[in-house]
């Protein structure tokens, strides 16, 4: 065990319609080798033993790839540190005696389920609106090497494809916009030859769904790019704008 003492100010909310409030939790014996979520595990263990209600939070892979963890720590999604998710945040980023604020993602489109867990199904619905190539499973497709793809295009498409769908971009955006999320998928598929036949339909459908879900508009603050755990560039938003514009003015 370590010897850091911290004060946690954690958002507690019983359900989507509950008002919610900040509750203080002093924690001690925190080791700098702990991850942030392990520190919460220790706190929850203690709460359960004392007969109190443990803090609900989403998490799964704990290695920064599934996109399930989602805490707003000291005013930043996934906390201090760049290019990492909450589960990769370690307590050595904090000092003995610190006070740490922990809140859920805040967005009209992400209602709170309980405490720090929110419902991000809106992102799935954007994907379902057009984030795919319309190809069925078939054992008779052309050979994977029949269509060479320039390395630069493949690499840029990959950069966009690394999105883990965590929603940090939405949480940090003053407008609650999901543009970076939507742009990443539109950009990936419009850069690859497989995605080109549907690019117009895709851009229109995904943007329409995004608006329907209640996400805000993009005003180019660039906060999303800073907080994105995968470092996805807002240049993809520029590409989405172009895709959308072309699709709008040339649609039949």
């Amino acid at each position, binding site marked *: 065990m370590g010897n850091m003492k911290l004060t946690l100010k954690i958002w507690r909310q019983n359900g989507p319609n509950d008002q919610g409030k900040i509750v203080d939790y002093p924690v001690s014996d925190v080791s700098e080798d702990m991850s942030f979520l392990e520190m919460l595990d220790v706190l929850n263990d203690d709460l359960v033993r004392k007969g109190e209600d443990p803090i609900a939070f989403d998490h799964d892979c704990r290695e920064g790839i599934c*996109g399930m963890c989602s805490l707003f720590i000291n005013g930043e999604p996934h906390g201090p540190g760049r290019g990492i998710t909450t589960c990769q945040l370690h307590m050595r980023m904090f000092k003995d005696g610190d006070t740490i604020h922990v809140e859920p993602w805040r967005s009209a489109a992400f209602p709170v389920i309980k405490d720090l867990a929110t419902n991000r199904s809106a992102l799935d619905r954007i994907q379902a609106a057009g984030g795919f190539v319309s190809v069925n499973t078939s054992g008779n497709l052309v050979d994977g090497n029949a269509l060479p793809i320039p390395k630069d295009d493949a690499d840029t498409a990959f950069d966009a*494809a690394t999105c883990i769908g965590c929603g940090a971009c939405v949480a940090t955006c003053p407008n609650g916009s999901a543009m970076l999320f939507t742009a990443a998928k539109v950009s990936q598929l419009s850069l690859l030859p497989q995605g080109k036949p549907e690019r117009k339909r895709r851009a229109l459908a995904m943007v329409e769904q995004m608006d329907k879900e209640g996400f805000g508009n993009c005003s180019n603050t660039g906060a999303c790019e800073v907080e994105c755990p995968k470092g996805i560039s807002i240049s993809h938003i520029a590409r989405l704008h172009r895709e959308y514009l072309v699709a709008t003015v040339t649609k039949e």
Partner: protein
Amino acid sequence: MSTLDSKIPPGPIDKKWTDHKGHIRIVAPSNKRRIDIIVVGTGLAGGAAAASLAEMGYNVKAFCFQDSARRAHSIAAQGGINAAKNYQNDGDSTYRLFYDTVKGGDYRSREANVYRLAEVSANIIDQCVAQGVPFARDYGGLLDNRSFGGVQVSRTFYARGQTGQQLLLGAYSALMRQVGKGAVQMFDRHEMLDVVIVDGKARGIIARNLITGEIERHGAHAVLLCTGGYGNVFFLSTNAMGSNVTAAWKAHKRGAYFGNPCYTQIHPTCIPVSGTHQSKLTLMSESLRNDGRIWVPKNMEDAKAIREGKKKGSDIPEADRDYYLERRYPAFGNLVPRDVASRAAKERCDAGFGVNKTGEAVYLDFSAAIQRYGKQQANMQKVENASPEQVRELGTAVVSEKYGNLFDMYENIVGEDPYKHAMKIYPAVHYTMGGLWVDYNLQTTVPGLFCLGEANFSDHGANRLGASALMQGLADGYFVIPYTVGDYLADDIRTGPIDTKRPEFDAAEKEQKDRINHFLNNKGTKPVDDFHRRLGKVMWDKCGMARNAQGLTEAVTEIRRIREEFWKDVRVPGTANEFNQELEKAGRIADFLELGELMCMDALNRNESCGGHFREESQELDGPQQGEAKRDDENYAYVAAWEWLGEAGKANLHKEHLEFNEVKLTQRSYK
């Protein structure tokens, strides 16, 4: 009682699958609309199956416990996916992939299944490319490959260190396309609690809505379990926190035999345990063994000094380092298969040569690679008389380009710069080759209940080769089940919708509600994790990398004791009708506490060493292979399929004898 019929089609091995597909029954398009299929789990196997079956016209209901289908743990696979494309012109073929997989699995898998896997592997790559999966490409725009452990060709396709993510997002996009069309109904944040059997057939499931706590009934003509492995029985593993055995275990308790439960893969290169708070272990990709050299000090005094913090790895001169894999296995060196590398690390640490505080770590050292690449770069960039610092810098840049994201991940967790100090690694539980027994059609011993991907026992024998898990998940989901499930469902075209008001559903639902109420009313003193940790320690100490009869017998007794105490003393706060994560965990751990005992029974029964299962009683005592695992083909060339007999610890062993007609059984040597 069901009998074991593997239903392997007749004929030569390379014709079996084609002939089988040509002869099994199919369901006409107009009739597919009348058939409902439940798919549990949305990883590579489940996501691919749900999407493919919906495309064909079936009504699909897909379930996952995560908040989105995209988060299934397939996403965490780093290295790559194997396929016999022979793009590198290095002599690869369907047969060679088949052979490597059977050999890598230490001759404990079913030949016909493995051959089919190798046969469809090339289709998988084509399918994923068509979906827009951004695989690594070379400057000519063609697909790139790399090498993995235990093979001598380059057949691994990859997407940087995130291959699993990209393949899963491909399957997820296909799935969401069907969700958008209404062909798949998606139930996320739902956990399957039981399978419902009507007249001997799987006809639906009981699931809990994890947000509202509501217990739901879902009927279907077939149920597909694609629910992943059970490595979390060890508490600490590289699995996601939510990965669990519940779906497979409940199916087992309803009549599905459990195959080879003791086969566990311990991955050699994971970040060592740092303290008691640890919740999971993080894998460092096998690809690191292409360039990293594994060693411990030769002298005990040096090892002691390192553990006490008086010396660093870099203080140990070259002559005093023991590169034990290169010493013991000169032919494969640091790229021996996972089971062999893990055992060798344990052997050195048990002998007292471990290099961290706990004594359970070895070095994975890139200094030689940095030097080698640095000198190469100095020559290429025409840097004359490069200083040692320059060489280091140039070499570091190359290593960073190849493995940068992994090095960052390591530094993040450990807080030490792996470019300057050798990484410390230790083996950790990673994958389970065992799972529900299935026949060639991927059907369990319960008619209408199918099992795909890591959740079944089928293709990897006693040890899985790197980059083969992704291959199997997608093969099962895209290219096997869409055919084989039709053969079963052809009888159901006139059945009509399954009535979920039947007494079988009443009974199954009541059982689950009673269990939930027991947890909530138990008012014990200890949280669920307390029991999980203790179970994990018993499993790791006595049913981990090395096993013996005495330890396994003790383990059975200890697990029973923990299980009893769990039911008496577990404390689960909150209520049934809310988002209650402790309640979710309680149900999962209750199942692990039963599975753990079966794993030990299976390990005790299998008095031979094979692949990931190492019985200390069964090793080579002398000769060039001294200390290596010793298989017993005469007595154990079978799949152990266990039948549940009504309570934990009581199980009946059925044997599926494995026939090897294509591959000759020999000792697996990597010397």
